[in-house]
């Protein structure tokens, strides 16, 4: 038994000791989901080790805001290196996978997802030590009587990006970066006006780097909301330039750059 497994078992035992669920031996059913097990590979995650903020009831399943926040010092010795997000009862459960570096300063991001129906949303986060953390939240999706909606995507805006990066920050204080790119995120599940399936066409990758050094990389799946939105943190040591690149599944890419000044 390796050290990681031992640690996670100890952690699990500790959690059980503190918090005894009604049926202490039962694992939550979402933990057994195929998509979750494909990532965890049998590891027992610490729960709830992740703050997962999503409305309990949402009136518009086509764009549901979700925030993930994990306590971590984000130092080279101890940081969160991966975060996965799933919607278990969507046609495909995977939403987004983030790979992070200590340059992010804070293991925290906000995005918008699609929820096909009421279901459980699960976040998994991995410590650089290999240990997994997890949280799950049930979300009820209702299409409100007053909220029928149509698509708002216009083709002339395809791949038009918006970013907001603070021009100035302080060393050691993570700064908030907001990004959005115009894109329909066609799921490949929708029928067009002619009755034929509209082929899948999505932004599949987002990368952020400071002067060539990676901050985060995200793999996006088709259940991300149209016009993919990502709010994340950066904690650079010195002044520089943040480059953000979105890549479509066709290979087409768009890049935005923003420079910032770091005060000591």
């Amino acid at each position, binding site marked *: 038994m390796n050290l990681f497994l031992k640690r996670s078992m100890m952690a699990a035992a500790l959690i059980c000791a503190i918090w005894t669920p009604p049926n202490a031996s039962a694992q939550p059913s979402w933990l057994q989901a195929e998509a979750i097990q494909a990532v965890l590979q049998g590891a027992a995650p610490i729960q709830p080790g992740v703050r997962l903020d999503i*409305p*309990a*009831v*949402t*009136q*518009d399943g*086509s*764009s549901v805001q979700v925030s993930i926040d994990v306590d971590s010092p984000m130092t080279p010795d101890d940081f969160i290196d991966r975060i996965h997000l799933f919607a278990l009862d969507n046609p495909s459960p995977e939403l987004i996978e983030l790979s992070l570096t200590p340059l992010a300063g804070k293991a925290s991001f906000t995005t918008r997802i699609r929820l096909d129906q009421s279901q459980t949303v699960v976040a998994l986060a991995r410590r650089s030590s290999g240990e997994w953390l997890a949280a799950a939240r049930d979300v*009820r999706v*209702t*299409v*409100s*009587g*007053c*909220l*029928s*909606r*149509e698509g*708002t995507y216009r083709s002339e*805006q395809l791949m038009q990006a*918006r*970013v*907001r990066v603070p021009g100035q920050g302080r060393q050691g204080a993570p700064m908030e970066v*907001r990004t*959005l790119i*115009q894109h329909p995120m066609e799921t490949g599940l929708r029928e067009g006006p002619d009755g034929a399936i509209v082929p899948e066409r999505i932004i599949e990758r987002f990368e952020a780097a400071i002067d060539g050094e990676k901050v985060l990389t995200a793999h996006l799946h088709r259940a991300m909301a*149209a*016009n993919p*939105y990502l709010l994340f943190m950066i904690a650079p040591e010195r002044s520089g330039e943040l480059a953000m690149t979105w890549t479509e599944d066709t290979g087409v890419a768009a890049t935005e750059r923003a420079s910032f000044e770091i005060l000591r």
Partner: protein
Amino acid sequence: MTMNRNLTRRESLKWMGLAGLGAMTGFPSLSLGGDAPSGHIVVVGGGFGGATAAKYLKRLAPSLDVTLIEPERRYITCPFTNLYLGGVRSFESLWHTFDELRDELGVTVIHDWAKDVDVEGRRIQLSGGESLSWDRLILSPGIDIRWGDLEGYDEAAAELAPHAWKPGAQSRLLRRQLEEMEDGGTFVLVAPDNPFRCPPGPYERVSMVANYLKNHKPKSKILLLDAKDGFSKQGLFMQGWERHYGDMIEWVSRSNDGLVMRVDADHLEVETEFGTIHKADVLNVVPPQKAGFIADRASVTDASGWVPVKPRTFESQLVAGVYVIGDATQAAPMPKSGFVANTQAKVTASAIIADLRGLPPVDPSWANTCYSLITPDWAISIAGVYEVYDELIREVPGSGGISPMDVGSVFRKQEAENARAWYAGIAHDVWGTRSLS
């Protein structure tokens, strides 16, 4: 719960007999079965939810002691304030009194603020110093503004950039600002994210403002900055805007940088999520909202700021014996509308009386119809009927929906007439207002 959905001839006769009896006594109350229930029901809030609850409690069970607490002697409705803002309806036509409740139905009406609630002692404190005990409490407190959630938007800012989302002085202020605006000015409306009071409200408001500007200040522009990527009856609204107002109204979705993050009321400026500054001549901020203050005092709100309720009765999920109706509740997919508050009040009145008699509550049915005027003669609607299924509220499958897209002006004008008729009908039902037609 099983229920006999097949009305037999025998039952229908029994029931019709009762109806006849009710009509003869002047009280078409049908719930005469069993012992007359007794108890003191305190209702807080004299709007669409609270006034209706007080009225139907007394109609269904005249033996009940019902007290309504509402600070205003003259209630002003939020529905149709947009018509006032657009200059097509007088402010006075939105005023209603509590005469019917007090004089004809025997409700004790106290004009005061509910200040605090002692849920264990079952007492409510009023600002005037009075304290009342209850057997059942109904809160219909409407909404409060989440001051400070939107940077720069506090109560002082609202005096410069009104919300006008709670009717009264704020509505008059916004109307005055529109009247004083010069031709060629820009009216900016900031619309919030869900959930909020009256989902189609911001869009009807810009329609009515456009109607006023088109007739009086045709060079003006309207900018609608939205925290959402879609809105209620969107296709119908946009079709109507294009037809009647050309390019006067510009809607900016959240994905097009419509989310406002900061308000500078002194300079009538707003800043969006991605840093765009918009300058307004008249700035109308519809801010984030939460359940009315007294819901917090009664400990019935959750972390969202709204009130979770049991779907069948609207009894609070957190405090027994306290019922909450109207905009303050989490009742999705029912929208936060006056119509919904009215039908919630009736279901809850029925449920409380059933409970007092030791009977189970019925399988409830709630309804909603929201009309929105795009011009005084061009209106659109959305209707919905709701039920409890699997212990959750849902829209009855196969029912409800919005006005068709492909109809002409005759249909739209009929809906505009129906909108005014609806207002007269619901004002009759809630406050006994008889002067409207």
